[in-house]
């Protein structure tokens, strides 16, 4: 983690601010395995009914499932519905995070 980010995290912790807000980290909310909300994404890399890959500040978020569809796609948030089987972060690195911002 870069020095600047570590400093930001420390300041956020001192001020009592949520880190995801300060750093723009993805916020992921799963409603069972039938729907999911993702905030602070940086775009879609792949979109299909069985696999969705989203770019985030932590790397690529891969969602595997079946009959998946986006019920809402906004600038910073998305909501999908379907049978979600797995959610996985791939290649979480400093460069990936920096590229998406």
């Amino acid at each position, binding site marked *: 983690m870069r020095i600047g980010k570590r400093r930001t995290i420390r300041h956020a912790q001192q001020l009592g601010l949520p880190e995801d807000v300060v750093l723009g980290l993805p916020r992921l909310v799963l409603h069972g395995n039938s729907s999911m909300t993702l905030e602070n994404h940086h775009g*879609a*890399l792949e*979109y*299909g009914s069985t696999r969705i890959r989203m770019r985030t500040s932590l790397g690529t978020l891969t969602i595997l499932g079946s009959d998946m569809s*986006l019920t*809402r*796609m906004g*600038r910073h948030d998305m909501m999908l519905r379907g049978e979600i089987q797995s959610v996985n972060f791939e290649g979480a690195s400093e460069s990936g995070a920096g590229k998406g911002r």
Partner: protein
Amino acid sequence: MYGGTVRFALEGLSLERLLNQCIEMGVILSDVQRPRVRVITAAVSSGQFKHIKALAKKYDWKLTVRKVTGLPRLRDFAWRRAALVAGALVFLAVAWYMCNCIWSIQIHGAGPYLGEVRQVLRENDIAPGRFSMNIDVEELRALLARRLSGLAWVSVSVDGVRLKVYCVQGVPRVESDLSDQPGDIFASRDGVIESVRVAAGTAQVKQGDAVRKGQLLIKGEERSWGGAVNQVAARGEALARVWYTAEAVVPLTEVVSVPDGESALRKVYVTPWGEWSPEGIPLFEDAQAVDAQARVVLIGAALPLWMRLEEYVPVTLESRPRDEEEVKHEAGLAALRLAREAAGVDKPIVDKWVEYSIIDNTIGAGTSPGVKARLTLEVLEDIAK
């Protein structure tokens, strides 16, 4: 345009770019589905659909509009059927105007002032067809109350397409109430006294007395404590049983029309402004009657032109006897109605009896047997006048 959504399908390669471009442009997609690898379907607000069109053109995607909802759909519908929409708007405007006009004027309780009330309304151009929003009911009420001094209370209101005028007539004081000159009270009719209530004067009759018209009921004299007799204006009420009689005659035969079996149809073209027929009224030797009518709308239900079919049937008038009991009942009811009108409908009925007799009833030039009912109605009435 705000307020609608457009559901579309895009076909092409690298459709993820659509999502990312929409994110950059702030276009919010909903219900995004990927039925096939090269096809994506989504919905977007109609105001942002232009961005989708621009993207489809830029990336050479095939854009298909699946469904349009909300105001844009209504706008397209109205644009394609401008005449229908214009007609509907005109209809609504006319219906609104017609619903805001006065089509009926109801005047209640005016009695003898009915003509004057109508005259006041006429002078103020208030007639069927007048736009009701232009009528100041409060001003009209004040005008009626000012002009018609015989009315004690007037109310004017607009109820839908009806203008309602409710009046209550003032009850003028009778002359005997107004006069302070000494005087007596006499019986206005023959009757049997049921009760006497004296406000001033001395009663000359008591309950059960049979009195004749003109007989003294209350004398205008009062005796004081000292024994002196003072002359006063007699006042009081004398309730008595009085009788009213009425007669009604109902013939024992009735005239019925019997069709001869022939008929003739006549077409009449009718519009709201008049009617016309290419055929004259068929002339039959005997009596004729319009037996049946039917309406056939000619040019659609919207145009005010229709055809009326009139069927003329020649008939023969025949005189047939009626059931005697039924005729008696009818004559009795008619006599009762006449007697009640004579007595006044507000007076309590004590008793009534009816006598029937068969008479020769004169109808036109000839005579026919009929039932005469003579009804006597006994009512309670104040006969002190």
